[in-house]
């Protein structure tokens, strides 16, 4: 059997991803929170319920209940761990940088200082069908955070193509 496809897979399923998948950080729904959102990947049915608690301009907690594949679960865990404790503005910048990575079709070099464990998702960007999995929780977080800030952005936004 050829090994080529296996190698491809390994670039998707990095050890870090599988670890987060098996042991997700910050899982569960907690109080207090200002906004709770429910996002769905309509294509495959993956779902997430997410709460965001802001405190003095800082993301004080992100808690969630998620159903989905390894990529979407691990991404959620990584995201929560990255943004909790960060000022909203900085967290939004991290979000932006993750989005750029995911939409880069594998051409964007991730910045480990910003994304930390998130750089493990660089390989996902080469699998267009999985990009939405990786982004589900990030989109939910952005939505919930914006709502927490008092802006309402009720219509879930779809990931931009191309």
């Amino acid at each position: 059997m050829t090994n080529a496809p296996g190698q491809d897979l390994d670039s998707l399923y990095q050890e870090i991803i599988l670890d987060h998948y098996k042991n997700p950080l910050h899982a569960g729904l907690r109080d207090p929170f200002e906004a709770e959102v429910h996002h769905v990947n309509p294509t495959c049915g993956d779902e997430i319920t997410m709460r965001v608690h802001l405190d003095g301009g800082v993301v004080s907690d992100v808690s969630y209940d998620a159903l989905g594949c390894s990529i979407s679960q691990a991404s959620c865990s990584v995201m929560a761990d990255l943004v909790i404790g960060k000022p909203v503005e900085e967290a939004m910048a991290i979000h932006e940088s993750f989005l750029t990575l995911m939409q880069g079709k594998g051409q964007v070099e991730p910045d480990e200082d910003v994304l930390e464990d998130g750089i493990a998702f660089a390989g996902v960007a080469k699998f267009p069908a999985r990009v939405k999995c990786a982004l589900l929780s990030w989109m939910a977080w952005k939505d919930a955070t914006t709502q927490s800030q008092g802006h309402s952005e009720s219509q879930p936004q779809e990931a931009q193509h191309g």
Partner: protein
Amino acid sequence: MIEGLLPQLDIVRKDFPILERTLAGGLPLVYLDSANTSQKPQVVIDTMVDHLERHNANISRAMHQLGAESTEAFESARDKVAAFIGAPRRDEVIFTKNASEALNLVANSLAWATGDLAVGPGDEVLITEMEHHSNIVPWQLLTERKGATLRWFGLTDEGHLDLSTIDELITERTKVVSFTWVSNMLGTINPVAEITRRAHEVGAIVVVDASQSAPQMPTDLAAMEPMERPDVIAFTGHKVVGPTGIGVLWGRGDLLAQLPPFLGGGEMIETVRMEGSTYAPIPHRFEAGTPPIVEAVGLGAAVDYLGELGLGAVRDHEHAITAYALDGLATVPGLRVLGPLDAAERGGAISFEVDGVHPHDIAQVLDARGVAVRAGHHCAKPAHARFGVQSSTRMSSYLYTTPAEIDALVEALEYTRSYFKLG
């Protein structure tokens, strides 16, 4: 050697150019996603090319030679489709853009019907828990908008319709019963004749979603007993080796003639004045605008192709492959098939779960081995919910599927388990 396979399967496969393709890493394509869309034989592609390169023109409206050729090609596609399903009359065959539009056409028109066909408070529409979203949402919209009630058949643990409640569900209040002939998720073949008879006894309209049955089993409407013959069936071109962009609605002529128009414009009219319009007889009444001409022509070639193979032979092939696949899947530890386990009771779509691996991840690993399956809810979320899962992996065979491809699937599933380090 497995019994029932299509004779000369290797030659049949040569008709499908895509099956010769290789994927990343030089792997051969193992296409097991035919319930999602089927591959196209060369003759369908060539027929479309010939039409575009030599006969392209708008139909009906055009008086010139190209127009006559194009109209002839389009209308003879209607004849071919009518023959394919044994339609009692050719003008009962309406071309839509896909099965979804065909189903919506009926539900949406009923929303504007008056008299006997009107749907309102107190009236009920009956569907089932195993429907494709395209046979759920149109009826939700209709009943919500008109204040009627949506009801549904539940499912047994084996993935059959739970007919034990039929007396409560089909009553004098039932205006429409709409259900799938073959489930695209569970594979289940439903008892069309029995349900149709019961529905007709109370005067309900019966709509059958034939999207998964038309590709796999002979359909002969004219041969059905009138009481047991659905009033409407819908199917889609791209699943019967035809192109995308075309679907079929067959409906009993006098029912269709009673339905208010759906889309207005173009060729669906008899006469138009600013103050009001009158409408053409079927089929044109429901074919507003320029229809999918080259798509109809391609569909004509597709059903001809299936007709030459023989739908009986295709059904036998599907049955043989499905039985073989069920056996193979049973050898994979932790794998659970959703739906009937007897190949005789089902079509060629087999959805399953594997303990400890999410369907996306299964599909991904399979894809890395060249095996193309579908993962997700397959547009059947309620059926997944019924079985307590959010998604599943689905393999679906078709007339070009070989036992060796099933072997490749089973082997790739074993590999998936080892990749994710499952016992």
